[in-house]
């Protein structure tokens, strides 16, 4: 999705590097440069946020919060030496993690674990977001299944998978962003993939047994 047609961006902006567009925006308040930057990266930023929170409304709010901070803080905190999108991603990641942690504060998950059904509080909640997500995104069954499994991954593992997938972020940067060592970041990726594999296998088993 791109911004409205009447505000079309000149074709030469397409060929510009991010750093050039950022420079135009910062020094000359060039709004078209900002629109071009947003058009380039919004889907990745939004996908990352959405894949972490699994709720359209919340994702919209965090996306807006992220770009509001980008606009207001760019003059003070962005150093043009670094990649602009990595800086934006850091803001998006922090905003997302803040939201997730705020949500977690309200429920003590460990105390609500049910040994018989082997489920916790969240497992027993109806997954309304997953339904909404399928309605709105019109995604196929396998993608829906994948998103569901990813949403069940621990937050740390999900973060590494998403940052790597949507941004192809080097593990060194992921490690810096999540404040762990590179080996820990690599280990989280490995566990995430192994866990996803298990989840797919368990689901296949269930389907086979039910048939």
């Amino acid at each position, binding site marked *: 999705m791109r911004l409205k047609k009447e505000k079309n961006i000149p074709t030469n902006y397409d060929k510009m590097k991010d750093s050039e567009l950022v420079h135009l925006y910062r020094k000359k308040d060039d709004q078209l440069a900002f629109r071009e930057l947003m058009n380039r990266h*919004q889907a990745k930023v*939004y996908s990352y946020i959405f894949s972490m929170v699994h709720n359209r409304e919340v994702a919209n709010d965090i996306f807006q919060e992220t770009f509001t901070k980008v606009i207001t803080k760019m003059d003070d905190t962005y150093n043009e030496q670094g990649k602009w999108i990595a800086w934006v991603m850091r803001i998006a990641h922090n905003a997302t993690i803040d939201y997730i942690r705020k949500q977690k504060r309200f429920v003590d998950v460990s105390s609500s674990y049910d040994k018989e059904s082997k489920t916790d509080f969240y497992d027993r909640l109806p997954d309304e977001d997953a339904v909404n997500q399928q309605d709105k995104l019109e995604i196929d069954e396998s993608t829906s299944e994948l998103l569901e499994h990813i949403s069940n991954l621990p937050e740390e593992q999900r973060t590494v998978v998403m940052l790597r997938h949507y941004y192809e972020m080097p593990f060194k940067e992921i490690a810096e962003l999540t404040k762990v060592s590179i080996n820990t970041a690599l280990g989280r990726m490995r566990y995430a*993939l192994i866990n996803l594999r298990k989840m797919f296998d368990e689901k296949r088993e269930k389907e086979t047994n039910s048939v």
Partner: protein
Amino acid sequence: MTKSDTDCIKYLENEMDPSEKIVFEREIESNSDLLIELETIRTIRDKVKNSLPLISAPESVLESVANFSEQHAQKPKVKSIPPYLTAAAAVFVCTITIGIFLIDESGTHQGDVINASFNSEINLPSGISTSETETEAVIPWVDRNQVLHFTGNQDEKADGADPIFQNSYKHLTPVGPANDVRTTQRSFHLTRTSN
């Protein structure tokens, strides 16, 4: 987590340097368990890579962000002053303030000394204002730089010929020998020699 546990991920994600890659590939050939783990992780990784959708933000959200950016651009920007300029300004202000303070202090101190010596010499009767007593107690000030010292013999005839010059002697007051002159740089002696 051992180093070998993360090797498969490092290999798949191109995080190995060429030498590490060669060593790992040799290990795969000899270790079938490692090969199985590698293929398992590769399969699920490819599935994630190919299936995860790229979701676009709603147009209304994008428009509101763009509008916010335009509004923000219209606000007058407060330019931040570079830190070195701030430091320089602070040093300048401090220097000026300290300078003024010191000048003021020394002026006040001198005044105090004068007043103290003045008051110690004269006991002011009650009811007499300070300004009146100041005029009485003033000691005539002699500018030693302006004193003309004469030494040697004076020619009476020559002096008598010039009454103006003779009258000028009446205004001269001897203040002591020439050696007493403290500031020799700016004083001068009018002398007359027989030559």
